[in-house]
């Protein structure tokens, strides 16, 4: 469905992406994860023909992204991270404009989507909150029922209920055969929804595998206030001791951790997702993956 070969983009001398090889199969729900500035958006913008690659090539539906852009875009829905529209237009006019530019009539599908996302189409775009503008962009990306969906940081600004509804819709589309490329810096989002994922850092893919495999190497940041004995536990890294607390990255067996916690004295406990830097640190330390 999507295949890039040594795809490279430099902005003058600034690095965008380097020798990117990425393959997304038909019907996949593919995650694309990395910190800001890693090259996620550059990759997506190149795939959509907004920018031209410096070297290498990319194909979607087996067609070259620079030469057969219109064909690709006809069957693609794109949700930009920053959803901005023309001033002074009503929501329904924007949806109509998008449909007209695609020369299709998607009124029925748009109505359905607006109802599910609770979007009032009579409102003026300028008066909408960030989240509501995002919904307009979602409808624009989905209303023509594309075969490929490209989503760049899709959940920013959406409240949790809407995020759930949004991912429900995506899963339905995916089950109906649509291929989805989901770019995000929220690890849990990828983990819950995607079957496969690629991790990008400094313009290069550093890992690409099924989410299950990637998750196995995923750690949690554990902070414990109290006294526990950690010496018997494996899978502890980046240990930071404070006066009466200890914080560490844990990628070992959860049962062993719970037993260690139960046998110690715990006043307070937090378990959080490690931030991305920690995950990437982890990927570099464990090595083995495609670095």
């Amino acid at each position, binding site marked *: 469905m999507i295949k890039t070969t040594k795809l490279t983009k430099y902005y003058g001398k600034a690095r965008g992406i380097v020798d990117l090889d990425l393959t997304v199969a038909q019907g996949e729900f593919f995650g694309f994860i990395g910190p800001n500035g890693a090259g996620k958006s550059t990759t997506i913008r190149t795939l959509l023909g*907004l920018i031209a690659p410096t070297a290498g090539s990319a194909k979607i539906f087996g067609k070259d992204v620079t030469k057969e852009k219109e064909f690709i875009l006809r069957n693609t829905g794109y949700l930009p991270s920053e959803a901005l529209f023309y001033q002074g237009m009503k929501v329904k006019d924007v949806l109509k404009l998008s449909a007209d530019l695609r020369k299709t009539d998607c009124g029925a599908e748009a109505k359905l989507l607006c109802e599910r996302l609770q979007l009032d189409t009579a409102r003026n775009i300028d008066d909408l909150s960030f989240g509501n503008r995002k919904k307009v962009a979602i409808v624009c990306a989905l209303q023509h029922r594309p075969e490929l969906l490209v989503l760049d940081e899709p959940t920013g600004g959406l409240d949790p209920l809407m995020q759930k509804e949004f991912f429900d819709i995506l899963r339905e589309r995916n089950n109906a055969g649509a291929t989805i490329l989901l770019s995000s810096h929220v690890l849990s989002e990828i983990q819950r929804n995607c079957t496969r994922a690629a991790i990008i850092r400094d313009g290069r893919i550093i890992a690409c595998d099924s989410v299950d495999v990637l998750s196995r190497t995923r750690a949690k940041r554990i902070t414990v206030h109290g006294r526990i004995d950690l010496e018997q536990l494996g899978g502890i890294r980046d240990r930071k001791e404070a006066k009466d607390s200890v914080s560490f990255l844990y990628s070992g067996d959860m049962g062993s951790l719970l037993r260690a916690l139960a046998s110690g004295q715990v006043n307070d406990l937090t378990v959080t997702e490690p931030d991305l830097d920690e995950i990437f640190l982890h990927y570099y330390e464990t090595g083995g993956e495609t670095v």
Partner: protein
Amino acid sequence: MTLVKHELRQGKTSLLIWTASIGFLLVICIFLFPEMKGQMEGVNDVFASMGSFTQAFGMDRLNFGTLIGFYAVECGNILGLGGAFFAALCAAGILSKEEKDKTAEFLLTHPVSRKRILTEKLIAVLIQITAMNIMIYAFAAGSIAAVGEEIPWKEISLMHLAYYLLQIELAGICFGISAFLRKGSAGIGLGLAAMMYFLNLIANIADAAGFLKYITPFGYCEAADIVSNGRLDGVMVAIGAVIGISGIMIAYLKYTKKDIQ
């Protein structure tokens, strides 16, 4: 033609405001004419003896006491500058605004080729300029008739045609510039239009700078020449056409390959 319609809708307010402003000033000037006509004998001499200033506006060759002479100087400048500003603003912003307002991602991820976008946007600019000129032409003719003067159809039509061509040439140049811009197009558009205007004034004053007339589109809009020759200068118009078309071609070359931010 979806995009043409969209652009026309987006530009409607601006078009109406510019047309109303230029039309209003034009009508006011024409309505002042009957009152001034009687006093023109003396004024003509004054205007004719202001040296370079007289030359700059072609007042040494136009009779201020006749409607066409008065119209050429007063209304010609209003329509010339106003129309040039509108055309430059409109064309300089038409491509760059997509990136400035960050709507480019929306527009360019639809299955519309860049060429088609350029063509439809160019058509939208030309329609707006044409609409403005037709409305202003009607205002002018109507006002002249309203003050009871005979309408000098040939001269008025030629002058309006010259300004129309000027606006299209400027729009062509600004369209080309717009393809390179990512933000702030208004200053460049207005600056270019003003510069062209002043180049013509300089060309009128200094004989050594006469060649400037062939560069600026205001050269073929010189009312004094149009009135006395009864036609536009074909060479100047042809050069203008080449410059305008070059601007449009540059826009196509640049924008079809441009990296959109």
